[in-house]
């Protein structure tokens, strides 16, 4: 804009607008801010199904919307943007009712409580002056349902879409906090009030002495290859509210440092189970795999800028956001939804995929992706997802006759985990370590491993257990030499025998008698669970 044009505009406005007329009514009309309170768990695709229609009335009728109704009916000034954002936000996060908001100056009622749709309307007196830079508000949370073994501390975030929020951490048993009201001078944006399950991490010496408290955004604080410095070498990572020791920071390649936990405790549990569904041959191979790769709760970030997790040390490969790490998480999401929600979903982690192959492979889920809905944004890399952008995309998707999966894919695209380094934050390391101790997650890992065993031995003629184990490990891309592999596998098998389990000899022929069909065959597993595959099951195998 040239100075000449600015002068011309100035001349025009002086001609057309005087200083005599004032705009009293602009200031005398009440202002009302919309608030949406939520937990970070993403709305599940199945929950979106009745809403993903072109018929707006049907969408509105499917959920209750007391807050937009109150906003529509109020005598205050109305704005479209927060109203639309409120509707879109309900497709992103699960609403949280019963949150009390108090302490904002000049509100018509001193306290607002979020309704069944998670919303509240904050109505301000006429001529309200919110020009102060910082206005603290008091947030009181409803009682939360504790999840056994997990931290019960929480973090509150108050933000406007697209901006970094203001945060407060609540200790165990504390329900009230003070947070700065975001953009107090702006009446246009929706206010997002997020209540997240949170953590506390420390680094300690081997004798338990605390050397460092890890603070900040624990979804961005990474520990691993290429990130962690030598000062943290040999320290142990703890989640302090549950007194959980996660793993030790080890050195790799002389200059890299990261977490390693072999998951031996989880391996013991796996060896002790599944005799009623897996043949002795499969349990032998699995016992060997546990020794070579690790237990179901094994986590490692020291040997590469990614998390390696579980019985097969699943990873996200370089230059990719998919890989088998996403596949196994998709399997848990698909077949063990309650466990998924307990371990991941309530922390905002979600999964998207477009279909299941009929034949198992390490890419059985098509177009798979992991995502995490944050409390606010945009964030700095690697979490550069932007809440503003995601809400806009979702709003556009809502206006079209999209299928539920498309709507969910829009959500997933908006908050997709961008790189493999997203998996080595303190929060992710802890959640996957913790999940690996859950019985359903262990079962999911064993089932997935069993499908891989089936795929590996299918190419062999009358294999021995040793040959089956070797084929299995090569299918994982393991570059370990045969001697070392045999040594580690034998150690785990011997540990199982010492625990009282019986295994056939390594050089004996693989015998699958005793393996349940659904544990051996992926297609059967899908059919029995009523999950569609591509191509579809033959009519005789379809579950009606």
């Amino acid at each position, binding site marked *: *804009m*040239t*100075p000449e044009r*600015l*002068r*011309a*505009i*100035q001349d*025009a*406005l*002086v001609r*057309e*607008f*005087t*200083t*005599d*007329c*004032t*705009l*009293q*009514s*602009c*200031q005398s009309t009440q*202002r009302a801010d919309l608030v949406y309170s939520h937990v970070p768990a993403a709305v599940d695709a199945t929950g979106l199904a009745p809403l993903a229609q072109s018929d707006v009335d049907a969408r509105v009728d499917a959920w209750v919307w007391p807050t937009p109704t109150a906003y529509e009916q109020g005598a205050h*000034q109305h*704005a*479209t*943007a927060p109203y639309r954002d409120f509707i879109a936000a309900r497709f992103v996060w699960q609403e949280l009712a019963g949150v009390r908001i108090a302490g904002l100056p000049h509100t018509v009622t001193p306290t607002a409580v979020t309704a069944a749709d998670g919303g509240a309307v904050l109505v301000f007196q006429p001529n309200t*002056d*919110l*020009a102060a830079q910082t206005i603290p508000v008091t947030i009181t949370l409803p009682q939360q349902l504790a999840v056994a073994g997990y931290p019960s501390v929480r973090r509150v975030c108050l933000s406007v879409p697209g901006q970094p929020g203001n945060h407060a951490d609540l200790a165990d048993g504390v329900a009230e906090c003070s947070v700065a009201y975001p953009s107090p*001078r*702006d*009446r*246009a944006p929706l206010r997002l009030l997020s209540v997240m399950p949170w953590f506390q991490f420390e680094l300690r010496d081997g004798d338990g002495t605390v050397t460092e408290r890890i603070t900040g955004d624990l979804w961005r604080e990474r520990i691993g290859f290429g990130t962690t410095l030598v000062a943290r070498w040999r320290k142990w990572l703890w989640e302090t509210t549950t007194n959980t020791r996660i793993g030790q920071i080890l050195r790799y390649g002389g200059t890299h440092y990261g977490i390693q936990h072999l998951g031996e405790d989880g391996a013991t549990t796996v060896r002790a189970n599944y005799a009623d569904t897996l043949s002795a041959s499969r349990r032998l191979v699995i016992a060997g795999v546990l020794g070579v790769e690790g237990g179901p709760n094994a986590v490692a970030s020291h040997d590469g800028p990614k998390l390696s997790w579980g019985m097969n040390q699943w990873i996200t490969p370089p230059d990719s956001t998919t890989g088998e790490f996403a596949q196994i998480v998709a399997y848990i999401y698909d077949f063990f939804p309650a466990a998924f929600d307990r371990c991941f979903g309530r922390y905002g982690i979600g999964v998207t995929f477009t279909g299941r192959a009929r034949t198992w492979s390490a890419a059985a889920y098509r177009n798979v992706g992991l995502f995490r809905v944050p409390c606010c944004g945009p964030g700095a890399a690697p979490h550069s997802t932007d809440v503003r952008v995601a809400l806009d995309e979702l709003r556009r998707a809502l206006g079209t006759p999209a299928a539920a999966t498309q709507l969910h894919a829009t959500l997933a695209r908006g908050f997709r985990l961008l790189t493999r380094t997203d998996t080595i934050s303190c929060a992710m390391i802890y959640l996957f370590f913790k999940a690996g101790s859950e019985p359903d997650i262990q079962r999911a890992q064993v089932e997935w491993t069993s499908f891989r065993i089936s795929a590996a031995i299918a190419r062999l003629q009358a294999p021995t257990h040793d040959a089956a184990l070797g084929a299995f490990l090569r299918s994982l891309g393991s570059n370990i030499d045969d001697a070392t592999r045999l040594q580690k596998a034998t150690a785990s098998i011997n540990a199982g025998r010492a625990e009282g389990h019986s295994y056939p000899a390594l050089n004996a022929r693989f015998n699958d008698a005793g393996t349940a069909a659904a544990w051996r065959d992926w297609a059967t597993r899908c059919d029995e669970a009523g999950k569609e595959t591509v191509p579809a099951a033959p009519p005789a195998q379809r579950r009606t």
Partner: protein
Amino acid sequence: MLRVTQAALAAWREHLHGTYPARLVAFLRQNLPEHDSEDLPERSAEASWRAGVWDLVDEQSVTTYVVLATIHGPRFDEQPWARELLADPRLAPPERIRRVYEVAVRRATVAGTPLAAKERHDP
């Protein structure tokens, strides 16, 4: 001879006030057509409201504020070059926004010259 009474003037002002939003939008469309869009009425109403936060209540001052918000973005008042003047208690509100506009003209004048960096935060 036409006599303008106080009552007639008040009625006229009332009329003018009621039509201000539409006149403002028309003004913006005519003078800043590159910023026209479907949501221009909402953006201009939002900026008008925000002008009130800075005690700008007369049409000319509010329109000046809205023009600057349209050109420099709705949060231009948070930038130091604008905020320091808008918050200056020694000046009457209309004078504050007039000076902010002068700074905007000056910034446009020196843009692309070595003076731009030097004067960037100078109100």
